[in-house]
């Protein structure tokens, strides 16, 4: 048997090691298996989070209490936020597709620290368990919103400690993933793979890694301070003890704004891969794509104040934060223009992942433009804490990262599983998902503009029509999601066998068999060409 054939039959899925059954997964330090561990845990929590969202939308179908009271609604949006932000969107693309594909795309056999990689999955599971524990322990679930704003987060009598500490542990997991990727990219690229021969998805993970590494400790210490505040009454953020709650907001957003870029940068990387592959054309402005990734990561550090325009800041600070916020739009726009230019004169192959990428660009632009409206000082005063904000960030973190996640899932599915999914049902699911998404979040812009506040279980009669449309959108979205997931899962068993390069991609992962062999490459590749060499 030739080595290639041998490798194809001994892939990472059927590799037999020391442990059997589930232990061969949860004790595995193979980056591919860890990627799948993350995939299944993140998908489970995503379904929990999405179901909470569905129920919240159902509550809002009519004014007054429909299916829950005010306190349950508070608990619902808190848990929805914590799960979706810390357990789904932040780890999403890096921990699943980054883990699986980063080493393969740079021609390495694994990440730099495989054991730490496994540890970070265990930390992830511990963190989410703590968050879920807070729902049942003590005097009722957390009700502060995912932001844990002071002073309410240490005044509420509900259980906060497990949730806050859980978020801290999730942050630690995220730091270790980022650290691992940074060292992997610095030290383990295949011979010949210079920085400017590296594909854009690894580049986006590199930018993300720095944000994870340099921003996450800030929320770590801030959450620890909340823990200290609740247990020891230290007074960091308690006005009665001389502390300053606004300082909490500053520290919180110093991390949580860059966190938005932890969510969106890998999404941009994945979309770049998809668009180049299906246009069969090298990415337009490759160097500018890298520069804009790094620029977004860098500038993203200095704009946290735009979450606090109405909290009280000096005029100079307001203008500065607003100006810097507008600056981020420039590299983001460069990326959008370059994606479009990549398609120009390409031989476009209309496949499901490409449709996802198109949908991504559409919703990402709406999300981005609404962000500019919120970034301007005068408009922000009017729109702050309304449904407009909810619509904006769902267009970015769900529309942006979520669409990119599903796009990446459909793009790399044949590589990861060695099977092909049913394209027709995948497209039907996508259409429903997209239409549901627009119907769900579109009306929220209008509602927010008209003054409907966020985080209330009740509203005035004038907002009724918009809310009915929005709630119906949530049903369409949810059924689209169900079709997508059922289609992918049924392809795991029944799908046609996939070839090693079903889309005609040029990056390294398409040069090895599907599913990949345990050691990724039979021979360490030597890189002589650029990542998107379609000539």
């Amino acid at each position, binding site marked *: 048997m030739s080595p290639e054939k041998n490798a194809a039959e001994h892939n*990472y899925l059927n*590799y037999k*090691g*020391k*442990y059997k059954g589930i232990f*061969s997964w949860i*004790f*595995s*330090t*193979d980056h591919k*298996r860890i990627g799948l561990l993350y995939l299944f845990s993140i998908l489970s929590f995503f379904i929990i989070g999405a179901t909470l969202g569905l129920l919240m939308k159902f509550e809002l179908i009519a004014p007054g209490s429909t299916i829950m009271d005010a306190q349950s609604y508070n608990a619902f949006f808190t848990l929805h936020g914590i799960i979706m932000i810390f357990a789904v969107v932040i780890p999403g693309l890096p921990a699943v597709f980054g883990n699986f594909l980063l080493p393969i795309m740079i021609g390495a*056999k*694994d990440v*730099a*620290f*495989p*054991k*730490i990689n496994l540890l970070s999955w265990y930390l992830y599971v511990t963190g989410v368990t703590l968050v879920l524990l807070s729902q049942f322990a003590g005097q009722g679930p957390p009700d502060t919103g995912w932001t844990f704003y002071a002073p309410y987060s240490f005044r509420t009598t509900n259980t906060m400690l497990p949730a806050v500490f859980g978020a801290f542990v999730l942050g630690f997991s995220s*730091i270790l993933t980022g*650290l*691992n990727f*940074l*060292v992997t990219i*610095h*030290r*383990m690229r295949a011979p010949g793979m210079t920085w400017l021969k590296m594909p854009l998805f690894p580049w986006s993970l590199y930018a993300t890694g720095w944000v994870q*590494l*340099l921003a*996450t*400790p*800030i929320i*770590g*210490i*801030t959450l*620890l*301070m909340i823990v*200290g505040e609740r247990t*020891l*009454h*230290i*007074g*960091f953020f308690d006005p009665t*003890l*001389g*502390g*300053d709650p606004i*300082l909490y907001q500053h*520290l919180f957003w110093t991390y949580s704004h860059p966190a938005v870029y932890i969510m969106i940068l890998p999404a941009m990387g994945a979309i770049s891969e998809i668009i180049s592959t299906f246009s069969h054309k090298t990415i337009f402005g490759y160097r500018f794509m890298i520069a804009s990734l790094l620029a977004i990561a860098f500038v993203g550090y200095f704009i946290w104040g735009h979450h606090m325009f109405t909290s009280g800041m000096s005029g100079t600070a307001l203008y500065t934060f607003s100006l810097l916020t507008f600056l981020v739009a420039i590299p983001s726009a460069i990326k959008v223009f370059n994606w479009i230019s990549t398609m120009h004169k390409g031989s476009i192959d209309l496949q499901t992942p490409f449709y996802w990428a198109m949908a991504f660009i559409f919703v990402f632009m709406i999300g981005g433009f609404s962000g500019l409206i919120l970034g301007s000082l005068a408009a922000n005063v009017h729109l702050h804490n309304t449904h407009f904000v909810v619509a904006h960030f769902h267009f970015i973190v769900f529309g942006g990262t979520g669409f990119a996640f599903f796009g990446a899932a459909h793009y790399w599915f044949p590589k990861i599983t060695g099977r092909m999914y049913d394209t027709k049902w995948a497209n039907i699911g996508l259409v429903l998902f997209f239409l549901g998404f627009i119907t769900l979040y579109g009306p929220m812009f209008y509602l927010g503009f008209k003054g409907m506040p966020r985080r209330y279980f009740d509203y005035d009669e004038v907002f009724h029509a918009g809310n009915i449309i929005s709630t119906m959108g949530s049903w369409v979205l949810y059924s689209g999601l169900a079709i997508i997931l059922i289609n992918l899962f049924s392809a795991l068993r029944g799908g046609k066998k996939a070839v090693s390069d079903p889309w005609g991609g040029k990056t390294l992962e398409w040069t090895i068999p599907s599913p990949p062999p*345990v*050691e990724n490459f039979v021979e360490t590749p030597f890189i002589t060409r650029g990542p998107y060499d379609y000539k």
Partner: protein
Amino acid sequence: MNTHAYIHRDDLTSKTGMWLFLFTEMLLFGGLFVVYSVYRFRNPLAFHMAAGELSVFIGTLNTVILLTSSATIAMSVTAMQKQNKKLTLLLLGITILLGVAFLVNKYFEWGGHIREHIYPGSSVLALRGQGDVLFYGLYYFMTGLHALHIVIGLVFIGFITVFVFINKVNTENFVLLENSGLYWHLVDLIWIFLFPLFYLIT
């Protein structure tokens, strides 16, 4: 472990990872330094008076202890490079003893304050005003978090000592020893900032 068929060893990679981890530790304390600066700026007099009450003697003693322990762990790496296992073990032992001595001093220092009813949440402290509450709150939280790092460092060095003893860390492969040294130097470095902030600036 089992499915990880490929064993990769690269000392520079390990050290790069450690350095990046140390960045995150600095930022963790960085958040506290920011909070400290803000509250010091707002309560200059109370912070000035309260800092005068801390024992400069114990603070200085602990600084000397920690600096010496940093020297001994650095020397243990050199001893390992010179293939002197006995000396390595001796120096690591001294490092651990010095770390424990630091914690013992800390215990007596904190004990003294607590006997005078100066601790977060105490009514005696609350009567002295908000500036004092914040100063001592930060004092306990920051030196407490630092002490926790000392404990983690000691456990880390303890394991390394055992590894040296059973030759798992040896003259061919001592990157773990170097990394524990890096971590210990960080703990030392943070103390170098905590010491003047709480004891010296009066």
